[in-house]
């Protein structure tokens, strides 16, 4: 539900990202049971084989474990949230940096750009309070 797929990227990876975001936002917690593959397939209107691949991949990433006859569970790992959050932040920054470098920005220019944008944003938010 509410999942818009980007057809230029593997769909199973987008399902993994969707679940990772739910973990970071606290909607799923370590030890929680994931929806059954069939349920999730119907829910987000995706081929059940694609869900199966996403779950299998998450098992390889040691994010989840499958308990025989019981379903798929998030691992009981308290550090999981921090690790995923850091990984996703690193990915976002890597993409951002690639884009900026391709536009010809140097490291220092990028830092200046970011800090300008952050202070603009802060001013805007403070401006709203007045």
């Amino acid at each position, binding site marked *: 539900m509410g999942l818009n*797929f980007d057809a230029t990227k593997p*769909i199973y990876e987008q399902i993994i990202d969707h679940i990772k975001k739910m973990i970071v936002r606290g909607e799923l917690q370590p030890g929680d049971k994931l929806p059954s593959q069939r349920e999730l397939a119907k829910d987000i209107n995706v*081929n059940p084989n694609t869900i199966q691949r996403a779950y299998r991949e998450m098992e390889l990433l040691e994010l989840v474990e499958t308990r025989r006859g019981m379903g798929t569970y998030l691992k009981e790992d308290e550090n999981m949230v921090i690790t995923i959050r850091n990984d996703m932040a690193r990915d976002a920054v890597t993409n951002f940096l690639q884009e900026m470098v391709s536009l010809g920005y140097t490291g220092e220019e990028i830092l200046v750009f970011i800090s300008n944008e952050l202070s603009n944003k802060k001013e805007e938010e403070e401006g709203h309070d007045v």
Partner: protein
Amino acid sequence: MSKMQAVEIRNLVKNYPGVEALKSINVNFPAGKITGLIGPNGSGKSTMLKSIAGLVQPSSGEVLIFGERPGRKTKNETAFLPEINHFYKGMSIKQVINLYESQFSNFNRERAMEILEFMNLKPEARIKNLSKGMVGRVKLTLTMAREVPLIIMDEPLSGIDPKSRAQILEGLISEYDAEKQTIILSTHEVLEAEKFFDYVVFLEKGEIKLQGNADDLRAEHGMSIQDLVKEVFE
């Protein structure tokens, strides 16, 4: 299991007078997967699907369905959705369901009624009063209500309005049983349908130009199947 093939095609040639519809095709359709057969008009998609369904006799080469040549047994294990509207116009949907039930031993009537409801169709409605999109939904209902291991759909989205297309794809995916069924579906509507495909086979002028796992193709080329096909085509 995942390596099992539902359909194997070896050196398949089909000639019509003056036309080479299929030029020595070699391709496998994996079991338990949804394969999208895509390609422009006249590329041979329909001929290929009909030879799998046993409706077209190959000029040479071989088609195997779960290891067997098309015949009585394989026909009983295959549900074929034709591109044309093949219903008697005067019949109601319910009468068509009765007809299917009498024709096919593996037709699940209860399931047909459920899918019909999901498709927003009334059993009393007469075929002649249905829009093209509604007929498309009836065809999907009848195909998915057959409990068979192989489902073949020839252009189920062609000439159908966007809302019905979405309903057909949604119905297809919610009724699809990956543990027991293989689906092969031809379509022009690559953009809408591609997210439901496990595998893609791209046919052009009777030859296979591209095939593979849909997500792997996306990862490898960094583009959608729709764009990839355009690139191969041009």
